[in-house]
């Protein structure tokens, strides 16, 4: 035993104890988990309300453990119920979080849907902060309740969801404002702006709201004109954007795309072309019977069976079997049995029954022309440094400067280079994309008729 070694001897014990203590400390730190607190609170609560020995025993049997809902089809594991232990227990209605009850589970059983598919946040996390997702490196924090309706659109058509007015409004605004003119969504739309698939996963509500009000302030060099709508509509639009999470859900979840209700039924009634043979309020075909008073003659079951196999319930019927899903049948039935609106036909907007101008207006909307040319083609959308008063030109007077064929060519070919007001400045960001190959021939004809009709009558007289 060397004297220098002897000096080191006490360090042996010290270092051994230090390593041991560090391991114990690491383990102890790991053992402290905040969810354990809430599980004990829950057990205490159960014990307090137990009235019989059996109930007391049952309360004591509740294990303290991490709980989770494994959802392979949603690619999720939701551990929210580790703290939110009572989401399915109605006796906890009115309790404070996390021990609160979540009403209305009937349509969305928790073992099939979990929590984060609607509420977002980090399902796998077991700490409050990380689970609610307001942490670094987590892209989808919990959705604020004011935007919760956006989650419905992951599975359902936005127009079909009952009690989701903001979502429906957002969908309408999306069409009316012509977003699709510049942006692609699921492969459809313009090329000037970025694609919108997954935009709801990339950006939060705050970013989207600010961006709508002043795009260039958030994304420098953005060509997008500010969206000039009220606060409520900004919120609705933001909410609709948040629904574009880019997630692909499995069949089970998207099978309920159409929520069977009268609204969906009305939409299907036009889409499936029922009016070709049947009539409502005297409008439509005469091959099949009029459907105005079908509710007096038939019940739900009969109509659904009839959709399934017309000849089985009505031998000799010439109605073909349509390839309808169960939900579509139920939606159409609901519509047929409840239509009470006397102006029903006005709502239906059946192309064959519309004037070319009406159809052209629909085309104008379908391709998002309003996004650049303004609502109704009235202009007013800024396009910095464009020769045309730094705006996208209004379409009010196209009838003056173009023939129908010239206008068709203009739409088909587009115009990539927009003349600059100041040749030294940056080129104007917005331009006319070519629509060749994207717009159908009949649609183009209708569109041109509509555009020509924009010319105010009295000014034509003075000419």
């Amino acid at each position, binding site marked *: *035993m*060397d*004297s220098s070694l*002897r000096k080191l*001897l*006490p360090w*042996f*014990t*010290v*270092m*051994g*104890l230090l*390593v*041991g203590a560090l*391991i*114990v400390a*690491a*383990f102890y730190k790991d053992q402290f988990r905040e969810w354990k607190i809430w599980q004990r609170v829950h057990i205490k609560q159960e014990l307090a309300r137990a009235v019989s020995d059996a109930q007391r025993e*049952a309360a004591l*049997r509740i*294990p303290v*453990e*991490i709980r*989770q809902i*494994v959802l392979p089809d949603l690619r999720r594991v939701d*551990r929210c119920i580790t703290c939110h232990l009572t989401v*399915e*227990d*109605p*006796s906890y209605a009115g309790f404070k979080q996390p021990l609160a009850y979540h009403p209305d*589970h009937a349509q969305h059983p928790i*073992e099939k849907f979990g929590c984060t598919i609607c509420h977002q946040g980090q399902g796998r996390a077991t700490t409050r902060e990380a689970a609610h997702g307001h942490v670094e490196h987590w892209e989808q924090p919990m959705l604020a309740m004011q935007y919760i309706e956006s989650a419905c659109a992951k599975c359902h058509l936005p127009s079909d969801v009952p009690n989701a007015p903001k979502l429906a409004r957002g969908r309408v605004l999306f069409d009316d404002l012509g977003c699709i003119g510049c942006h692609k969504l699921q492969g459809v739309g313009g090329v000037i702006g970025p694609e919108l698939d997954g935009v709801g996963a990339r950006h939060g509500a705050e970013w989207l709201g600010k961006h709508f009000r002043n795009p260039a302030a958030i994304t420098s060099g953005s060509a997008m004109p500010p969206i000039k709508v009220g606060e409520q509509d900004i919120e609705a639009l933001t909410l609709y954007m948040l629904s574009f999470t880019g997630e692909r859900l499995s069949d089970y979840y998207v099978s309920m795309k159409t929520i069977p209700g009268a609204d969906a039924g009305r939409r299907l009634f036009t889409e499936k072309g029922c009016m070709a043979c049947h009539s409502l309020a005297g409008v439509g075909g005469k091959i099949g019977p009029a459907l105005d008073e079908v509710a007096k003659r038939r019940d739900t079951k009969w109509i659904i069976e009839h959709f399934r196999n017309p000849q089985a319930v009505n031998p000799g019927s010439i109605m073909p079997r349509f390839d309808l899903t169960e939900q579509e049948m139920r939606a159409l039935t609901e519509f047929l049995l409840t239509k009470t609106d006397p102006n029903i036909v006005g709502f239906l907007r059946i192309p064959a029954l519309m004037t070319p101008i009406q159809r052209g207006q629909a085309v104008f909307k379908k391709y998002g022309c309003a996004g650049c040319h303004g609502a109704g083609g009235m202009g007013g959308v800024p396009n910095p440094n464009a020769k045309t008063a730094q705006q996208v030109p209004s379409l009010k007077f196209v009838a003056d400067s173009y023939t129908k064929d010239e206008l068709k060519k203009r739409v088909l070919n587009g115009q990539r280079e927009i003349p600059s007001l100041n040749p030294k400045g940056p080129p104007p960001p917005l331009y006319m994309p070519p629509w060749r190959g994207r717009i159908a021939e009949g649609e183009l004809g209708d569109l041109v008729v509509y555009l020509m009709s924009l010319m105010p009558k009295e000014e034509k007289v003075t000419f």
Partner: protein
Amino acid sequence: MNSTVNNEPNRRDFVQLVSGWCATLFALAASGAAAARFMMPNVLYEADRRYRALKPDDYPEGATFLPDARLFVLRKGNSFRAVSAVCTHLGCTVLHNNDGNGFHCPCHGSQFNENAAVTGGPAPKPLPWYLMTLTRDGRLMIDASQEVKPDKYLVV
């Protein structure tokens, strides 16, 4: 300084060595224990031992097999009970007999009567019956960690 005398460990050295080894062994044992605990999973990606089934009315009269939880729910009127479908012999999944009474195992031919007692074959024990309760939102809860006697029914 006489180095040969000094070089032999003295009593003090010995005590320090022993305490050093004890500390090191403690560290080793602690890391071993931590590693062993690490290996014990805290969550499982299999069906919950406390399995939430559907509402009582969703089950028909007789036996219904729940594939996730590998058990049978048996209904007789308003009475419900749940039995494991895992053969006590070597863990195969047992089948419900076609005549509606009892179970049999397709692997090695064990036979169980309607109370899951062994009536034939190599199975050493009856199939266990599990505690069934009703949750507050009216669904059946089967707790596979709580065994009960076969005559214990949940009456709804």
